[in-house]
């Protein structure tokens, strides 16, 4: 048999906990797959925004994975992308209303990016590449892992950018009045810098482990 099919056969034997762990470490959506860069760069300017955005995305990912996996034998392959988008958009709308109902201020600070979760390629790629081919249990674990990995990544960017760019953490002032904010860190450019540093660190650790 070819190497490819061997590889696929091996993937199927992996115990289920790996479906969860891989999203956090080996296949981290941000640090390894570099997916969903729009919200990663745009909404990671404060720790709270990053955390809220990460959790909102994880919720949408989980719910869409559940539905896509449950309906995988019902959706004909010609209309699968349209169906996935419909499902994802529904849960994005639900998230949007829920966040509004929780706090007007939070909704204010996340702005247009909640609605933009719908075009986050991470969610569509998990639906297409994983949930549509795997059982419900596996898909749930996959979504939880990927969602958590995405949240952790967003939060690590948000924390660094808020501390350096605003001198605070979750809105708490850290350094007193004399701190000169490093404004570039909360601008889009700072998002790229911080992401690059995290990628560097992540890849260094991974290459050492290998």
């Amino acid at each position, binding site marked *: 048999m070819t190497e490819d099919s061997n590889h696929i056969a091996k993937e199927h034997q992996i115990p289920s906990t790996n479906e969860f762990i891989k999203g956090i470490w080996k296949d981290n959506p941000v640090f390894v797959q570099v997916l969903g860069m729009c919200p990663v760069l745009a909404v990671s300017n404060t720790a709270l925004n990053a955390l809220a955005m990460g959790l909102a995305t994880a919720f949408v990912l989980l719910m869409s994975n559940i539905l896509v996996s449950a309906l995988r034998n019902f959706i*004909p392959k010609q*209309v699968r992308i349209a*169906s996935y988008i419909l499902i994802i958009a529904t849960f994005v709308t639900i998230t949007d209303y829920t966040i509004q109902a929780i706090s007007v201020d939070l909704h204010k600070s996340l702005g247009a990016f909640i609605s933009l979760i719908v075009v986050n390629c991470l969610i569509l790629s998990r639906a297409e590449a994983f949930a549509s081919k795997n059982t419900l249990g596996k898909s749930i674990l996959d979504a939880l892992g990927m969602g958590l990995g995405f949240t952790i990544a967003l939060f690590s960017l948000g924390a660094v950018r808020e501390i350096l760019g605003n001198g605070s953490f979750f809105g708490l002032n850290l350094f007193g009045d004399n701190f000169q904010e490093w404004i570039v860190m*909360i*601008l889009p450019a700072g998002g790229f810098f911080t992401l690059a540093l995290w990628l560097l660190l992540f890849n260094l650790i991974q290459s050492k482990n290998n």
Partner: protein
Amino acid sequence: MSNSAQIAKKSNTKMLRAMVGIGAVCAFLIVLTYESTFSRIQTLRENALQEAIFKVIPGTTTTKSFELKDGSFVELKEKKSDGPILYAGYNDNDELIGFAIPAEGQGYADVIRILYGYEPEKQTIIGMYVLESKETPGLGDKIEKDEKFRQNFTALYVKMNEENSKLINSIVTVKSGTKNNPWEVDGITGATISSRAIGDILDKSANHWLPIIEANSEEF
């Protein structure tokens, strides 16, 4: 031929069934969420607006809503209304302190909605609060967070001309640190467009509302 046509028809039905089915479930879920969060969202918005009224008219203890109908103000008993609304703030002795006026205009990212307080006796703007904006986080959103910028609106001069038809001096946003006159708004470095937008919104709204308020001043 007929066999392949049958297969095609069957797969069409399948597709249609899948799309309509998923569409119906999604529509149901959205309606369900909308209905269950609607009253809570309305309450939160109403609370945010009420809090904002007290912020922009310092010293207020009670408020009343007024609607402009056919050129005169009618007190609103219910919350729902189609016409333009403004809010009057009173102190403990039921004396009028000022008005909270909603206004909106184009900012950098999207429409900015604000509420500002106006004191008719001294003809000054005494407070400004951003109700809704999608300005760039960290830059444009300084219009709501920057303490120095907010100081602009604790006593902004909006004196009207003798006929009470328009402001003597337009409200303008000037470059940061160059404010010389009481009708100027000191801008924010790095948020030029957003801070200018606030000045323009105030100027337009004040020129529109202040003469109307003055002409109907005995109705409050």
